[in-house]
Structures are given as C-alpha cells and as structure tokens.
C-alpha cells in the first residue's frame, strides 16, 4: 500500500490517526470512572446525589458512544484510505468539531447540571422539573449537533470517495457482484464494503438526529412550539440505535485487515459475504423499533417487524462474520500477540453480545425486561468486549507496525484482566436484569445492590487495564515512525 505515499507523509497521517485513537481511548477511560461511580452508588458503597448520578449517567452514555464512534472512525479512515482517496481536511475538521462539541456537552452537563440522559427524549430537555435550565439544555443539544456535523461531513466524504472509485454506493456494497454482473475476484474488499455500509446508515442516522436535535432546541427556546412525542421517540431511537451500532461495523474493519496478515490467509469478499453486509445495512436501518416494543400505540406491524428483523440481523454476524473469523484462525499457526488477541476477543464479544440482544428483542421477553439492567448487560458486552476491544486491537497493531515498541508481560496481564472485568461487568448487569432491576436508577433497593457493587469493583480492574493499554499507546506516540524495515511490513506481523 505504501508505494503511493512517501514515508514522511505517512508519518504525518498516522499522527492524526493516533490523535483520534488517543482522544477516544482517554475519553473512554474517563467515562469508565463515571460508570464505576454509578455502580458503587447503586451498590450502596458511595453516597451520590441524584443530580450527580444522572449527570454522570448522561455524560457516561453520551461520552462512551461519542468517543468510541470517534476512535472507530479513525480506524475506518486508516484502512479505507488505502482503497479510495479521502480528504485529509475533512478528517481534521471532524476532529476540531468533535472537540468543540465535547467541550459544550461537558459544560452543559457539569456547569449547568443538564441531565436528560443521552436519549434526550422529547420533551424532557425543556421539562426538567427545574433541575436544569435553558442554557444547559442548549449547550448539550447544540454540542451534540456540532458533533453530528463533524461526523456527517466525514461520512459525506467517505461516500463521495467510494462513489468516485466504485461508481455508486450499491457497487461499494458489491451489488453488481451479487447480481452476477461482476466476478467475485473483482468484488470490493471487506474494508470498502464495511465503510459503505457505515456511510449509508450513518448519513441516515445523523440526518434523523439533526432533525430531532433541532426540534428539541426549538422546543427548549420556545415551548409554545410542540411536536409529536411518538415521532420524536422514533427519530431519537433511529438516530441512537444506528449510530451506536455503526461503531462495531467500523471497528470490525481492523479484524478484516489484520487477521489475514497474522494468519497469512486471505479474507476476501465473496457473494455470501456481500449479501450478509447488504442484510446488515438494511436491518440496521430498520430494527430500531425494538427500542419501542413497549409503546403499544405504535403500529403493530412495526413492532413485529422490530422483533423479526432483530432476529434476522443476528444472522450476518453469526453465520458470516464471526464464522469467518473462526475459520481464518482455526489451525492457522497464528502467532498470538496483543493486537491479534484483542481482535479475536472482540469477535467473541460481538458474538456473545448478540445473544442477550436477540433474547430481549423478543416482544414477550421485552415486556418484562425492557429498561431493566438486562439492556446495559447486552450492550456492555457487545460494546466493551466487542467494539472497544477492536479499538484497542488497532492501537496495538498501529504501535507494532509503526514503531519498534515491544509489548511486555504487563500488557498481557492487562488483556486478561480487561477481558475478565468486562465479562464481570456485563454479567452483573444481566443478572440484575434477570432479577428485574430497573436501569437508570440512582439508588437501589437492598436486594438489587449486590450485583451493582460487584460490577463497580470489576469496573476498577477494567479501568486499570485500560490505563495500561493507553500507556502503551502513548509510549508508541513518543517513538512513532521508528519502525525498521519497510514502513508497512507484513512480514513483521506474520
């Protein structure tokens, strides 16, 4: 890949990628602290005022999704630039807008006590029962809008670049290969397919998100303008569900790119692979209604569709992506290290995380599990053990190919600790859900406290492991570009 760019330019570009990842990782670590504090408060160990708890809740959800999406966009950009011509200016702009948006959100939440949780369900931003004022709400909502603008620009750019190279987004998904017009050997590579999918779903999500954010802003400024709360809920969850989901679809690119290098086995797009990704694209756009299964005023067909398509959305990952990862590793003689280990664990996290999600998407189950801690149980597994592990895998990979930095036994311990800790955190959420503990509750009844306390303690270990990952990455940044041999050496990882 490096034949087109000289080494200096590559170094500069990797610098920006590193900025994306370090910002993302540090924000994720800080958000873990808020998560730990919340669990300890629920576990009865810590006395936290309700106002503080819900501020932490708001910043934890917003910050985790924002930071993980941001870092994942960095991962996607790093690999996608080998196939299409991306705009560096836009990449920088997204970073600038991200930082502005984050600062606004932080000021809104902590200085102006804004605590609507990330869902900002209309009309909560305007009707806080005097907990926060107009300024806090506007800082948060406008901050989110600024974040959204940055991401939207980024995805417009990836869309433009993919269309320029491949002709259309349909061809980026390999539809001409599916229909048989083009041979499988000419199919777009997995990175391009995944990026196309993410471009399609996130442009949709961000447009819906902008609409509902501006709507809330209008309502906060002038409460005389009212809107339909059910439509607002639909748009909010369409935005939130799709955007949060896109993180793992960006993150998986690192798995597609590095496992073949570690195993010396190809991972190419074939027809079934492409069909799976087209399915993922469609379903990801449609299944947000599984967040609204307890709104019986919704058209029934939409809710039934929510269940059926949520089941179907498990198929591409269970049958194609995870299976592919297993096949490529099976009897490959792979040399395990931090990057390959985390990449493989992330596929495990994604796959097990799908299970409680599908269970909860069943309407009769959702009737007694919706908005219990079962839901965070599912997505902590899916995001913490899946998506975020992908980000860490990439960080170790980048450090490996772009410097001479070696990993130590400490990193390996951190990997094991991280894995066990996030399984514990997710597990305690699932147990809490199974005993009907509601999510987003500042305090718990005594019978609900045990799992939360356990989770808080496990969270501390997870945080420590994450700090070790970050320290390694910072060490890499300091010695960046010291890699001997060619600047992108496949032999080095093999």
């Amino acid at each position, binding site marked *: 890949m490096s034949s087109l760019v000289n080494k200096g330019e590559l170094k500069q570009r990797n610098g920006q990628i590193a900025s994306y990842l370090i910002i993302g990782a540090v924000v994720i670590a800080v958000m873990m602290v808020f998560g730990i504090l919340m669990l300890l408060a629920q576990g009865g160990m810590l006395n936290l005022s309700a106002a503080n708890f819900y501020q932490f809740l708001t910043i934890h959800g917003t910050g985790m999704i924002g930071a993980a999406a941001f870092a994942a966009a960095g991962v996607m950009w790093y690999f996608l630039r080998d196939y299409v011509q991306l*705009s560096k200016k*836009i990449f920088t702009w997204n970073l600038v807008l991200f930082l502005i948006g984050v600062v606004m959100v932080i000021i809104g939440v902590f200085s102006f006590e804004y605590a609507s949780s990330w869902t900002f369900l209309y009309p909560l931003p305007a009707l806080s029962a005097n907990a926060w004022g107009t300024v806090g709400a506007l800082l948060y909502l406008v901050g989110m809008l600024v974040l959204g*603008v940055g991401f*939207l*620009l980024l995805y*417009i*750019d990836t*869309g*433009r670049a993919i*269309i*320029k190279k491949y*002709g*259309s*987004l*349909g*061809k980026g998904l390999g539809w001409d290969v599916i229909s048989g017009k083009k041979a499988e050997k000419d199919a777009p590579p997995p990175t391009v397919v995944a990026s196309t999918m993410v471009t*399609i779903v996130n*442009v949709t999500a*961000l*447009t*819906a998100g*902008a*609409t509902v954010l*501006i*709507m809330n802003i*209008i309502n906060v400024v002038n409460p*005389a*303008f*009212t*809107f*339909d709360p059910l*439509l607002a809920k639909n748009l909010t969850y369409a935005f939130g569900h799709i955007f949060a989901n896109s993180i793992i679809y960006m993150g998986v690119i690192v798995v597609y790119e590095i496992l073949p290098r570690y195993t010396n086995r190809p991972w190419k797009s074939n027809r079934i692979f492409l069909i799976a990704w087209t399915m993922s694209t469609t379903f990801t756009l449609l299944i947000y209604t599984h967040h609204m299964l307890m709104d019986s005023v919704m058209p029934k067909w939409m809710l039934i569709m929510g269940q059926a398509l949520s089941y179907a959305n498990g198929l591409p990952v269970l049958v194609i992506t995870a299976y592919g990862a297993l096949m490529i590793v099976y009897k490959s003689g792979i040399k395990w290290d931090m990057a390959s280990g985390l990449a493989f664990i992330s596929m495990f996290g994604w796959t097990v995380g799908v299970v409680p999600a599908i269970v909860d998407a069943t309407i009769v189950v959702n009737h007694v599990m919706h908005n219990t801690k079962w839901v965070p149980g599912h997505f902590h597994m899916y995001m913490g053990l899946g998506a975020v592990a992908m980000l860490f895998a990439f960080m170790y990979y980048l450090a490996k190919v772009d410097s001479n930095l070696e990993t130590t036994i400490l990193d390996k311990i951190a990997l094991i600790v991280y894995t066990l800790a996030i399984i514990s955190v997710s597990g305690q959420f699932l147990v809490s859900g199974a005993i009907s503990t509601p999510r987003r509750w500042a305090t718990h009844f005594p019978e609900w406290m045990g799992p939360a306390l356990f989770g808080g303690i496990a969270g501390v270990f997870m945080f420590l492991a994450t700090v070790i990952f970050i320290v390694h990455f910072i060490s890499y940044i300091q010695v960046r570009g010291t890699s001997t041999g060619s600047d992108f050496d496949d032999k080095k990882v093999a």
Partner: protein
Amino acid sequence: MIKKWRSNSLLSGLILFGVLLIPFIRQFLESVMVLHMLVQLPLLVLVGWLIGITITRNFQSHFDSWNSNGIPGTLLFVMITMYWMIPRTLDEALSIWYIELFKYVSLPVIGLLLYDSWKKLQSIGKSFIYLNYLSMFGLMAWLYIDSPIQICNNYLAAEQKILGWGLLGITAFMVLYLVQAVFTDQTEEAI
C-alpha cells in the same frame, strides 16, 4: 450564443421580478400560505439566480474577493432561508411593510449569491447543504402538520397543515433523489 443566453437570463430575471411585483399576483400568491412559502419565495430566489448568471460574470473578481470558495455566500443563503422558514416571518411580511420589502430584497440577493457559490462549492459542501435542507424541510413539515395551535394570525390552522404536507412532499422527493443519486452508477461523470 452564450452571451445572448446570458443577457436573456438577465432579462427573464427582471421580467419575473416585475411579474411578482404586480399587485394582483402578489396578493394572490400571498393569500394562500402554501403558495406564499413554496411558490413566491422560491421564485424570488430564482430571480436572483437568473440575474446572477450575468452579474457574477461581469463582476467575477468582486465576488471572488470575498466568496472565493463559496462558503460565505452559502452561509448567508442558509441563514436567510432559515429566517424565512420561521413561521412568524410569513405572517409579518403581510402586516409589516418593511418585512415585505426585506423579503423582496433579501431573496433575490441570496439567489444571486447561491448561483455564485454553488458552482464554487466542493461536492462535500454541496452534499452537506443538501442534507441540511433535507432535515430542515422534514422538521418544518413536522412542525406545521403537528402544531395544534394556529401559529400565524393571517393563515388558518388548516392552511398550516397543507403547507406542512407540501414540505413533507419536498422532503420525500429530496430523499428519493438522494437515493437514486448514490445508488445509480456515477462512473461516467467521474470520467
């Protein structure tokens, strides 16, 4: 040939402007809310666009000096059009003479700026503006259809609803256009 076409555009712009100024036409278009926002206002922008074809040509350096990448002009266009999407402004245009005057001046001016900016804008900027208007029109449609109260003094609640459906139609059309644009083959254009 091109020159002739250019002067024609100036002429047709001025004629259109004149037609829109005719009291009878003006009153007719403003009497119905949906005609006011979705016919009169866009036509006033079109006046500026047509005139702009000639004007920007003759004063290109002047325009380039402050609007070289098209972003300042576009921002002004976005701000003015957003102002005219606020429900109250249409109302005020009917009752306050200087708001009406502002309408007849501001919209042709931004039409002109749009012509100058659009050709300079990069494709990312164009796509962004397009998506911005898509969500704005969707939001306005939602506001007008859903509003339980009569927002304007001069127009009835039923008229607000019709306007809302009109805006929703535009949004739907924009979505369809977008979908066909990204899913049909663009390779020929790229070459």
